């Protein structure tokens, strides 16, 4: 087990190194540079000033030189300076990460719980009315664009009922626990509804397949109660494919909630990475994307470890 984990951690380092090169190269290929973007909104910016700014930001150097400098700095613990936030990268990244953690962990937890309840209920009687209702809900969750869902939630709960704030992370002068909960309610609800649909379909399919297996029949024949068969025997086995899906989703949750964050004005990782790519903020975009990659790899490692716990037949070598 230990050698497996060590090997995977080493592989992670190699993947991160390769990814950093690929991301840096791809961003370097994008047309225009930050100084061009600045010049577009600065009447009077002279060619001399533009050349000077390129030199200050190091943009006058070849891409490979810039990458090598960046890599050496990162290896020495300097993650660089975010040009678009005018602060060190870690100072920008940390609050965004905290906000994403609040948003994602809440919605992820609710989605997993809801999808387990709905997926299992649905799988117990495929074709029944519960299954029909859950399938409808799941397909709606999968197919409704989150942009639209977010807007409907804002119009209903903020504009119409005026129960919840439409956006932001807290009221100025408040920012207490309940204030933050109020501001998180709608984005968490939107993400939960969107994720639950997809998760529910996986749980349902895995449960239907597991419930038809021989060992379930054996368990029933041995006199195990219905609850024990479902929750101990069947669900545990059905969790193996579900854990894979959760692991894959978990990484993307940290970087992929761009639309939700934009709609509800939450400064999280998704929006931060997107903005930094668009504005050619190399340092911030790179660290953000590498963090997302790292999270995905770690989530997959945890999923592999979870397989062993869920299915004793699986061995990690």
């Amino acid at each position, binding site marked *: 087990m230990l050698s497996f984990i060590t090997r995977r951690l080493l592989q992670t380092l190699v993947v991160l190194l390769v990814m950093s090169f690929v991301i840096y190269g791809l961003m370097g290929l994008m*047309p*225009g540079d930050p100084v061009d973007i*600045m010049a577009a909104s*600065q009447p009077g910016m002279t060619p001399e000033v533009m050349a000077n700014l390129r030199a200050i930001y190091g943009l006058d150097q070849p891409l490979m030189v810039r990458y090598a400098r960046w890599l050496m700095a990162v290896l020495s613990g300097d993650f660089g300076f975010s040009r*678009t936030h*005018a*602060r060190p990268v870690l100072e920008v990244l940390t609050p965004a990460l905290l906000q994403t953690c609040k948003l994602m962990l809440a919605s992820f937890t609710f989605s997993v719980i809801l999808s387990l309840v709905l997926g299992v209920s649905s799988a117990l009687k495929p074709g029944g009315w519960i299954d029909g209702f859950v399938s409808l809900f799941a397909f709606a969750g999968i197919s409704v664009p989150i942009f639209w869902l*977010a807007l409907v939630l804002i119009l209903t709960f903020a504009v119409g009922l005026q129960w919840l704030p439409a956006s*932001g992370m807290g009221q*100025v002068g408040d920012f207490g626990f309940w204030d933050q909960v109020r501001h998180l309610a709608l984005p968490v609800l939107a993400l939960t509804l969107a994720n639950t649909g997809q998760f529910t379909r996986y749980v349902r399919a895995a449960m239907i397949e597991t419930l038809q297996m021989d060992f379930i029949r054996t368990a029933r024949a041995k006199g195990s109660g219905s609850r024990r068969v479902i929750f101990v025997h069947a669900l545990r086995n059905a969790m193996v494919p579900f854990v894979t899906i959760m692991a894959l989703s978990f990484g993307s949750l940290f970087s992929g909630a761009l639309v939700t964050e934009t709609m509800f004005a939450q400064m999280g990782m998704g929006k931060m990475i997107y903005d930094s790519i668009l504005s050619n903020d190399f340092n911030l975009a790179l660290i953000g994307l590498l963090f997302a990659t790292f999270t995905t790899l770690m989530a997959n490692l945890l999923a592999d470890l979870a397989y062993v716990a869920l299915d004793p037949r699986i061995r990690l070598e």
Partner: protein
Amino acid sequence: MTFRTTLAALGIAGLMMAAAPAQAAKDQLTIGVAQFPSTLHPNIDAEVIKSYTLGFVIRNITAFDKDWKNTCLSCTELPSVKNGTAKIIDLPNGGKGMEVTIKLKPDLKWADGKPVTTKDLEFTWRLGRDPKTGFSNSQPWTRAVKIDIIDATTAVLTLDKVLASYNEWDQILPEHIEGPVYEKAKEAGDYIKQTTYARNPTTPGLYNGPYMVTGYTSGSQVVLEPNPYWAGTKPGFKRIVLKLIENTAALQANLLSGDVDMIGGEGVGLSIDQVLELRKQHPDRFEYLFKPSLNYEHIDLQNGNPLLKDLRVRQALIYAADRKTLTDRLFQGLQPVADTWVNPLSANFTKDTLHYPFDLPKAKALLAEAGWKPGPDGICRDAAGTRLSLEFATTAGNRLRELQQAVLQNNWKAACIEVRIKNEPARTLFGETMKKRSYSGLAMYAWSSSVTESPRRTLATDNIPTEANGWGGANYINFSNPRMDELITKAESVLDPDEAKALWAEMEQIYAKELPVIPLFFRSEAHVYPKWLKGYEPTGHGHYGSMFSENWRAAE
């Protein structure tokens, strides 16, 4: 905990959430904006949203007001040759220069109580002239080669040229805060990273306007509260919050829910079509104001394209474009049709230029005269059989521009000119295509300028982007006219307003006659604000209405 207890707890939590105040009180003004400033340093990075935000908290020495007149904000009197505070001098090198006396208001203070003095002015001048500081616009300070401090409020700046803009001066930086930072960072050229405006933007001593920044959450919101040492008109709000909501649909929903009171109109919020739609749906709920601005929407013509070299073809394009109907239909006539790049609100505007009303028969006649005849598919061909077909680029995904393209494409088809739409993302269009002048036919976008700025950037030969100058300059049309170059240079140094007006009139005439671009219209800023907000007066130029925000207040 039983199921019932859990349910009750959740219910109470829900009630607490619902009972919390949904609307801000009227001593607070919440402004929704769709962009966020990257830094609050006045001279680092150029962004519309930053200028808008700084308008509340930092005062320029001088600024153009809502009537586009230059006025003193931090000075006691506007420098002028007439009142003796500016004079032309002989320079040691034999040339002519100027001495400009700036007298700061004696009661002007930073928000930490320290007075604003000529020491701050001298410090700002020194920073502006140091290329290592990374100022994106150091021009206001590089104009002055010398500064003489007379006393705490009076200084004389020596310019090495005679400049028409001698009485336009930007913000001052606080020496007592930024001085030590600069001294520490100047050798390494690190000031851009160490400035207090970025490191600790809520430091009161950074601001000298009616408000100061008391809260700054990067990428989320900026909180402003009154500067206790402000000596001018008392600000009307205890707090102003600039709240970032990037998605404009969500921004509108926030306005309707009362989460924001108004939306910044200076290009930092909704587009004109969105505000027009909002007005249609809620005509009485808000105040709506449309202010023509210095953003000049136009179509660049590629002068390297053989089809566009013929003036008659360029004239046919403009005669066949029904620009009046375009602005009437798409923008309810709120964006005035342009004849040149000079806005009619500018003191340098002239009516005496060539006008090109919509005239389809004239367009057809001009094409026939140039040797173009309609072919079987309705598109013109010359004697060699070449089709009169041009590529037409703009920023992809910009719905309004794409609509404008569709209208113009139809207009031109009627005149037997084919245009093929080839749009690119803004980043590609401006970062590559325009900069390297590699568009092949027409390119539609907007120019933005300051009130008295000469057209050097966009029309002078020395601003044609080339590989040799690192693709600097914004003369994307490759326009090169010796007389225009001469007029630009003269206009930049003439002090007599009548003489300046004559020079500008000639530039406008050349522009309208040679037609290097097709002028479309001046964009209007679309403002939505609450009916209870009084004293709100947008300007339409780069010295935004926020610069006069001490006059904003809630009606009793």
